[in-house]
């Protein structure tokens, strides 16, 4: 499934808990939040608002 990066919620360097929203994708007329699967620091964001992402693309790295 292809999606647009609609909104970037978290920022690099930010401390995140499991379940926190990283970015919100837009696809099929739906806003789909991408959540942190575990707690950690957001070390790198690989997408910006307006980018198009595919299944399997790297969105962010949690350190």
């Amino acid at each position: 499934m292809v999606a647009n990066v609609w909104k970037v919620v978290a920022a690099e360097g930010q401390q995140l808990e499991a379940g926190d929203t990283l970015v919100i994708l837009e696809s099929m007329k739906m806003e789909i939040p991408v959540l942190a699967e575990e707690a950690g620091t957001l070390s790198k964001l690989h997408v910006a608002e307006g980018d198009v992402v595919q299944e399997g693309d790297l969105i962010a790295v949690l350190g």
Partner: protein
Amino acid sequence: MTATDNHRAAPATPAAGATPAAGATLPRDPVIRLEALFDTGSLELIAPDTGTGAIAAAGLIDGTGAVAFASDPRVQGGASGEAGCAAIVAAYEEAVRRGVPIIGLWHSGGARLAEGVASLHAVGTIFAAMTRASGLVPQISVVLGPAAGGAAYGPALTDIVILSGLGRIFVTGPDVVRSVTGEDVDMARLGGHEPHSRRSGVASIVTDTDTEAIAQARRLAALLGDHGKVADDPRGADFSGLLPASPRRAYDMHPVIDRVLDAPGVELFPKWAPNVVTTLGRLGGGTVGVVANNPLRLGGCLDATSAEKAARFVRMCDAFGIPLVVLVDTPGYLPGVGQEWDGVVRRGAKLLHAFAECVVPRVTLVTRKAYGGAYIAMNSRSLGATRVLAWPGAEVAVMGAVAAIRILHRRTLAATEPEKLHDTETALAAEHERTVGGLQRALDLGVIDEIIDPAQTRQAIAHAIAAAPQARGAHRNIPL
């Protein structure tokens, strides 16, 4: 021992990183494994253990009767010969005669090499016995060690497959794979947790430890073996705050399911096709199967895999007389070349067929929206739903109003000045809602029976199930 020892599918040591915590693995003695499955002191062997490689027993699980068998990995790696297979077939006949669930504890390299074609024939008789029993008694497989060849297809023919930490399921092991295809893969990557929980759809449930695997098998045997009855008037539950403020925002359906059920149920295939959730649990004390879209995954779209997953679950529940609760929030079937080539038409049709033939009480609740072909597939009135409920503000339509008017009024909109486009679209969408869409139209047509206060959700669903005639589908549960 003998030359057949070479046939052992696996060494006892697991791949690095896959080792469960110490004490989490049950001893290899099949009687000890069976004792862990049954209520204490209730186990009775169906036939004495004569070293056939498989042992069968009857007993109680949570006070309800059950039959079980276990392969004996201490004898030729649990491989099945004529005598061992006969013991398993006898266990099946006993389960069907008693009308109780049957649980298989698998740890077997497959057919015994030393017995040649006789063992192949014998393994085939197990498959035939499983198929005869399909839909009559619930069948649960727990894979505790490697299950290869015939031992892989045995579990695959049953209703539910639980894969424990050291369990591995494959047709042929890493050595054969390497020599035939050149792929270098270990047992865990070939047939362990990751492939079978996320990719293949072989394992309904994976657990880290044998103890958890047995505990899940007991919960499922109790749910499937003793349905109880859905009480007409269960306690209420608070559903407020579960839907996001924006109608476009995705949300997780799990908290909704947890509140519909008396207590969190047992989810099957949680990581495979997660855009549909299939969970067994109790509502008002009676066993129900929940089929739900999950908007958090693929926006709640149905696709080829999730339709197949849901279809098999619906047919299983129907075969055992378990009422269904269908929670709907779906924007449609997933579009795309990949989906079409993957057979979304053929595989999606399975869900239509499953619901249309289903005779158990089945109640649909539209939480937010039901669009297009997916609206029909998710237990719509047209497919014979017992009752269709909706929360206030839910939408039922071929597609969203804005998307619809962009097609219906393509020419008008193309001729509209860009700065007026938004206003024109809004006006056309509102008009469209008035004339063809909207919940009121669905109520007038009778495709939705009632708009309910979310606080009354459990009562409304339970009442509809309790008031419907109890029936049970007369079919088997083919592994779709």
